[in-house]
């Protein structure tokens, strides 16, 4: 695999861009693999990469029903942060943050991880106290966090509504300076290229239609490209986990819901941070192309359609205008939906399953993108060793039975309310 660098760009420019190689091979399936990862999204590709990179397992195929990165990794609002409260979440997302900080160089692919800082506004003393609790936990776990008062928020983001007529006046904010955004497609492509470089077969347009079993053991998969044998199978198809899980006989505490995302016309720099509204459902950042990328709440009913409805569009527009009055005349360019695996506690599920040789990675709710590298790292470890990586010990399937749930919001077991 030819390294990417300023020099390679220079050299190729001189040869009319004719000598670039494919970023990853157009692989067709072998009869069998040591490990098959189902799902060519961020998590699946990262898992394949770390299986090879960390565990030396290179006889690996990633099976993708469409094109790599076509699922949530390419549909999200690209926010990366590690501001989690609960024991089990805090450390995992911070580990992920550390992997992000080195990702471009590790993959030799610029994923444009930009640590522009994220703030969430607070609108009452009580809310700011709640944020302080979170910030305290972050600091005590070695994570950067700050609490800003109203003036400090104003200095940072003067374009928010600090007027007397604000419906929910800004009281302060919680700020994480290392939080930021990344170029989502590049994450999928970077992992695909790096995994391919380690010999992983990335097989697109290959839909898994069933599982091959020997007793309680998975021995391969049925696909639209035929049967493929496997020593172990990892499932990383968030959004469609239930559909594939059912084919394997898994019963899961997951519902699929649509989360909409929005982008505006490209503008000169306006929003330098990731800004989230603490009084309602709205968060925004500005991409390197100049579009304001934003989102809000789930549409709130089970859905596999990658689109939402006008109700949430209006609610998000209202919240956007309330927090950031100048956004009102900026124009929405596109909105779309992603299908989220929602779990009853809004925390993910990564674990071995009751079926031998089958490993599960799903239930990412709307937090999957930021988890991509840590998820891949820990899932690869779990597949390679057959035992959960310590960082994902809390993410087992049995936690709902035992009560060890990790409910950051305390919203309760109705997945759509998380």
């Amino acid at each position, binding site marked *: 695999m030819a390294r990417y660098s300023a020099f390679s760009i220079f050299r190729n420019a001189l040869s009319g861009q004719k000598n670039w190689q494919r970023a990853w091979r157009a692989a067709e399936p072998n009869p069998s693999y040591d490990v098959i990862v189902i799902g060519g999204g961020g998590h699946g590709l990262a898992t394949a990469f770390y299986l090879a990179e960390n565990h030396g397992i290179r006889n690996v195929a990633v099976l993708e029903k469409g094109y790599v990165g076509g699922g949530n990794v390419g549909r999200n609002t690209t926010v990366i942060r590690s501001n989690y409260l609960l024991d089990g979440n805090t450390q995992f997302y911070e580990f992920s943050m550390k992997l992000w900080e080195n990702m471009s160089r590790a993959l030799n692919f610029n994923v444009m991880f930009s640590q522009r800082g994220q703030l969430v506004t607070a609108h009452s003393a009580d809310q700011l106290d709640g944020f302080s609790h979170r910030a305290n936990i972050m600091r005590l776990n070695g994570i950067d966090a700050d609490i800003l008062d109203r003036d400090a928020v104003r200095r940072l983001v003067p374009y928010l509504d600090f007027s007397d007529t604000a419906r929910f006046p800004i009281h302060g904010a919680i700020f994480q300076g290392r939080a930021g955004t990344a170029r989502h497609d590049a994450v999928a492509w970077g992992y695909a290229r790096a995994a391919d470089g380690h010999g992983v077969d990335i097989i697109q347009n290959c839909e898994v239609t069933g599982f091959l079993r020997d007793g309680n053991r998975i021995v391969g998969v049925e696909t639209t490209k035929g049967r493929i044998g496997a020593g172990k199978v990892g499932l990383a198809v968030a959004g469609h986990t*239930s*559909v594939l899980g*059912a084919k394997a006989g898994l019963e899961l505490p997951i519902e699929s819901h649509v989360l909409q995302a929005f982008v505006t016309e490209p503008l000169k720099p306006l929003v330098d941070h990731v800004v989230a509204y603490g009084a309602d459902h709205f968060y925004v950042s500005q991409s390197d192309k100049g579009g304001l990328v934003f989102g809000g709440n789930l549409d709130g009913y*089970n859905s*596999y359609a990658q689109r939402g*409805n*006008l*109700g949430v569009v209006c609610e998000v527009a209202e919240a956007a205008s309330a927090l950031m009055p100048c956004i009102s005349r900026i124009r929405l360019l596109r909105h779309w939906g992603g299908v989220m695996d929602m779990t009853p506690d809004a925390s993910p599920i990564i674990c071995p399953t009751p079926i031998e040789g089958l490993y599960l990675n799903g239930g990412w709710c709307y937090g999957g993108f930021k988890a991509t590298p840590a998820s891949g790292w820990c899932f690869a470890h779990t597949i390679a060793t057959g035992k959960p990586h310590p960082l994902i010990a809390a993410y087992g399937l049995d936690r*709902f*039975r035992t009560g060890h749930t990790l409910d950051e919001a305390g919203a309760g077991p109705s997945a759509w309310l998380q």
Partner: protein
Amino acid sequence: MLPIECPCCGPRDHDEFRYGGDASVTRPAHDDPDPEAWYRYVFIRANPAGLHREFWQHVIGCRQWLVVERDTRNHAIASVELARKSPHSKSLARKSPA
């Protein structure tokens, strides 16, 4: 908007309704002591990509809880009925001790 045809109020936008989730799961009787039954009722979901029986309440309206059959792939609604009138609840009513 996802218009839902309320049997009482006619077609109304879904933001007048409160979602209540999967209606195909059976709620154990109130005094059923079986943890497994409650675990499955509260947590386990078929989550089909296709027709989904689900509860909605016309909360900004007649306040009736409804059972809606809706395709999760395209949001097309096949049927709406009052939860009290749905076969599901009738069978429950029979099982439930007075």
